[in-house]
């Protein structure tokens, strides 16, 4: 044939034109085209052809959508029946699909609940979008930028007075912890000592069960307590009007004026008890603040700002106001800025003193969303692969349906119905599993997750939408693929050319295993890093160290009696008193200090006050110089410094050099020392030890004698032997109570305490391990199904090969090889991805392992091993079949 009309136009015509007219029109057009091309040449003929086709694109010629069958309900019922029969016919495959989908959905549901809870952090308040926290940004002498959530007294009140945009403001102040008791002093607990302004409940919506929101915190010496604390203190008695006592050296009495519903865990503000701010007015210190204090760091301040206010403008106005009111010589002027309530949870890592005990990390939100999505994808891929792999079995059904008049859309609908059905059965199973697993998940994540479908419509709608999405995604490809079969060839028994489907199936398997390998490698790296952290020499020995808190002046005064008492115990090997300890969980003091010979050059150093036993108790190595001498108290101005401090100060030898400490910072603002500068002499240099978590590098530190004007002692650290620990603790408590009977005996094991540094990392690591396990489990389920399918298909081939003399080994290898190659490709893709990811994760540690190829190979090897075991299970079974059995069937 010499000339052909434009192919695209032919296709277009065939695409839209109704079959009733197509043949005639196409024929006429073709004939005309041939004549035209003889008469006018090919180009013009093509043009006329194209134009005519376009002109033919008229409503009456366009394919009629197949009329909706009148018995559509019967059809849908039929879809269900067929789906049910199919399920029964292929029980094994269907179960695998179902298990995979329900596992994937369970994990994803749990992850979603977790994410939802994180995203809804601090969303309890109606005026939440208007609430801002005031943050103080200042530059330290070291040039470091610090952000503090505590600001001056006047900021809240003066903001409301001066700026119309500020509708309300509330502040509160924390004084550490205090012991809380009821009147008989039988029940007690340690709680934050926080004084809260009376309008707290105007700004925040925490519900009060009893008491008046407006007046509960007005009277001096009144307190609002939570249900939990009320129960602990008063049991079943009504708490309102009762007296609570607090002990902070001196006893204070408060009347309970309100009972607060327990504050949900997804709030950054956490109170068990709030004392009325007005109580402070009676204290002498109050005068120092009221009306005068613009720049201290003591008061957590929250502003309620009118909607639509330009926040940066308001910040500028406030900063101007503060600058006007601060005395000129105070050159440490802070810059204040506002942080919106919803940002506090995710965006506070650099902010100190903010009451944010469980800060969120937006990156982990992304990562875990990704994991949830991938798990579902892996499960959906299983469904897709199984559906297309088994398509040969259903080809005839499709052929018959088409012959009888099924439209393609109807068939697509049928297959999507089937996948939706599977998805919804899996969803029901998953919902059940989630209910069962929730308590464990809550325990694990330290959250209060709940699956309340009735009270939380968002969850219900979300779940339904996701289920439909999964059903459609996993059903879509099989539906289009299966419904495209040509009925004539299918019914004639011609084998469908499945090349494209097979390649897609392989690609999907590679995708599944890429994700699985990335997750396994990530888990391995995380485990290695966690082990590294736990086993890294810290520069001191954290084992068998029992730390006892000093909470009262009586105990502090009688420390020598207690120390000697402890040393008298057979199981106690060493005792030290110190202001802070390595692995400290409270704020470490920092001091501003300068060498006497360069007094203008201030440095910031961490500070611990300790006795002579400190080095021996913690097994810290003394590099140069000498330790403190306890005997004659002559060392009260001596200090030890660590290697980093020596480097910072440029010292190589401890030689009684004078270091002048001029100010201290206990975690709030820097303040001058009460009794003037503390002039110290350096007598020794100790080896660096990790007094902070390994996320941080070792910072310069000063260890001063415990009798110093900077920081008094707060802890006994005792080195005990491993035997009879309960007995030792009991004896220690007894010795302490001889000095102060009312002192609550609080103790920690240092290694447990230090493990808390990495608790979040560990928890995430475990979560990751669970997700990785689930991923590879689901992926292997799919692989198992595919392998058994492929073994089934090759039954004859295997039979013939065996007859020809192939060994079981050869056949097993033959059947396994294909899948092993796929996993191998997945490994090649996964390695760079996981390398990149883990490198990023490790960068959050100051001390970290080197990524080694071994880890990646191990991860790949584990995956390969698991998948080969999975596959060879089927392959070996197939290889052992008697060829007579397989070849006889026809």
């Amino acid at each position, binding site marked *: 044939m010499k000339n052909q009309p434009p192919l695209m136009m032919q296709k277009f015509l065939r695409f839209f034109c109704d079959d009733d*007219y197509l*043949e*005639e*029109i*196409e*024929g*006429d*057009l*073709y*004939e*005309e085209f*041939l004549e035209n091309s003889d008469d006018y040449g090919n180009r013009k003929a093509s043009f006329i052809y194209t*134009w*005519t*086709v376009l*002109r*033919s694109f*008229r409503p*009456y*010629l366009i394919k009629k959508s197949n009329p909706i069958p009148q018995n559509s309900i019967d059809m849908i019922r039929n879809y269900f029946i067929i789906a049910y029969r199919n399920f029964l016919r292929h029980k094994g495959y269907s179960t695998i699909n179902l298990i995979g989908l329900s596992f994937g959905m369970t994990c994803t549901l749990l992850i979603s609940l977790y994410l939802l809870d994180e995203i809804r952090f601090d969303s309890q308040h109606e005026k939440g979008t208007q609430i801002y926290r005031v943050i103080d940004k200042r530059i330290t002498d070291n040039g470091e930028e610090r952000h503090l959530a505590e600001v001056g007294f006047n900021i809240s009140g003066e903001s409301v007075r001066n700026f119309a945009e500020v509708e309300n403001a509330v502040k509160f102040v924390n004084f550490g912890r205090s012991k809380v008791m009821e009147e008989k002093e039988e029940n007690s607990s340690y709680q934050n000592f926080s004084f809260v302004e009376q309008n707290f409940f105007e700004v925040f919506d925490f519900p009060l069960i009893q008491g008046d929101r407006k007046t509960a915190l007005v009277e001096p010496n009144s307190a609002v307590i939570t249900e939990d604390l009320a129960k602990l203190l008063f049991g079943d008695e009504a708490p309102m009007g009762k007296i609570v006592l607090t002990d902070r050296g001196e006893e204070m009495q408060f009347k309970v004026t309100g009972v607060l519903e327990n504050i949900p865990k997804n709030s950054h503000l956490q109170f068990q008890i709030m004392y009325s701010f007005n109580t402070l007015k009676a204290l002498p210190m109050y005068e120092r603040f009221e009306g005068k204090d613009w720049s201290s760091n003591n008061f957590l301040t929250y502003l309620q700002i009118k909607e639509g206010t330009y926040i940066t403008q308001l910040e500028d106005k406030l900063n101007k106001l503060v600058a006007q009111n601060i005395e000129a010589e105070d050159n440490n002027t802070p810059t204040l800025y506002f942080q919106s309530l919803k940002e506090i949870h995710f965006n506070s890592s650099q902010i100190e003193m903010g009451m944010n005990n469980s800060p969120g990390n937006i990156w982990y939100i992304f990562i875990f969303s990704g994991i949830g999505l991938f798990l579902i994808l892996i499960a959906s891929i299983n469904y897709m692969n199984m559906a297309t792999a088994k398509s040969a079995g259903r080809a005839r059904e499709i052929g018959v349906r088409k012959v009888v008049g099924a439209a393609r859309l109807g068939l697509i609908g049928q297959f999507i119905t089937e996948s939706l059905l599977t998805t919804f059965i899996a969803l029901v199973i998953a919902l059940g599993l989630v209910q069962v697993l929730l308590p464990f998940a809550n325990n694990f994540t330290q959250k209060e997750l709940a699956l309340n479908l009735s009270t939380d419509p968002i969850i219900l709608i979300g779940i339904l939408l996701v289920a439909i999405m999964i059903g459609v995604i996993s059903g879509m490809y099989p539906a289009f693929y299966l419904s495209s079969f040509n009925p004539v060839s299918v019914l004639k028994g011609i084998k469908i050319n499945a090349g494209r489907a097979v390649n897609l199936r392989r690609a999907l398997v590679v995708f599944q295993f890429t994700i699985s390998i990335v997750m396994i490698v990530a888990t391995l790296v995380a485990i290695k890093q966690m082990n590294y952290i736990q086993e890294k020499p810290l520069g001191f020995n954290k084992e068998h160290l029992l730390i006892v808190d000093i909470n009262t002046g009586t105990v502090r005064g009688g420390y020598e009696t207690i120390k000697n008492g402890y040393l008298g115990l057979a199981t106690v090997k060493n005792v030290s008193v110190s202001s802070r300890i390595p692995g400290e969980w409270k704020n470490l003091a920092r001091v501003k200090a300068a060498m006497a010979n360069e007094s203008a050059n201030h440095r910031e150093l961490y500070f611990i006050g300790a006795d002579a036993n400190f080095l021996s108790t913690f097994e810290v190595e003394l590099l140069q110089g000498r330790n403190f001498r306890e005997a004659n108290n002559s060392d009260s101005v001596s200090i030890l410094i660590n290697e980093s401090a020596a480097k910072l100060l440029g010292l190589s030898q401890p030689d009684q050099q004078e270091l002048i400490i001029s100010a201290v910072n206990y975690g709030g603002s820097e303040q001058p020392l009460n009794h003037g500068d503390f002039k110290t002499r350096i007598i020794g240099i100790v080896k660096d030890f990790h007094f902070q978590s390994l996320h941080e590098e070792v910072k310069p530190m000063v260890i001063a004698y415990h009798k110093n004007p900077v920081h008094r002692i707060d802890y006994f650290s005792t080195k005990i032997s491993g035997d009879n620990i309960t007995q030792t603790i009991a004896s220690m408590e007894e010795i302490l109570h001889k000095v102060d009977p009312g002192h609550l005996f609080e103790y920690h094991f240092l290694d447990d305490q230090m493990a808390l540094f990495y608790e979040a990392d560990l928890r995430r690591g475990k979560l990751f391990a669970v997700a990785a396990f689930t991923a590879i489990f689901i992926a292997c389920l799919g692989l198992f199904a595919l392998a058994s399918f492929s073994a089934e298909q090759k039954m004859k081939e295997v039979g013939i090969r065996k007859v020809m003399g192939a060994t079981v080994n050869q056949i097993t290898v033959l059947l396994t090889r294909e899948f092993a190659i796929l996993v191998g490709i997945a490994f090649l893709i996964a390695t760079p991805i996981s390398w990149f990811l883990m490198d990023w994760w490790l960068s959050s540690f100051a001390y970290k392992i080197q990524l080694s190829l071994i880890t990646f190979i191990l991860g790949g090897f584990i995956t390969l091993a698991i998948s080969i075991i999975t596959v060879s299970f089927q392959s070996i079974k197939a290889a052992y079949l008697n060829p007579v059995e397989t070849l006889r069937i026809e």
Partner: protein
Amino acid sequence: MKGTSLGEFEEIVLLTVGVLFDEAYGLSIKKEVEERSGRSVNLSAIHAALYRLEEKGFLKSKMGEATKTRGGKRKKYFNLTSFGIQALEQAKTLRQNLWSSIPEIVLKGGGS
């Protein structure tokens, strides 16, 4: 009565089908119309008219033989139905009546 009335183009197509008798299919009709009227017509317009006329019952069709020049596609031949002939006659009568009703003077080119 709508449905039996004939448009000008439809009438021409219908007449052409009559003229071509046994050889009336899409392309031949198109060529005949073009030849006789001297204007070029798009094939799709012919098809549209044919299907409309068939729907109205003025035409009937049957599938013919496949030929090589048509890429293996069969022709669809159209024939006038008696209803179609009746419609043509009606249209003709209508015109003749109208013709005969025009005053002589108009045809003579008078008027004013």
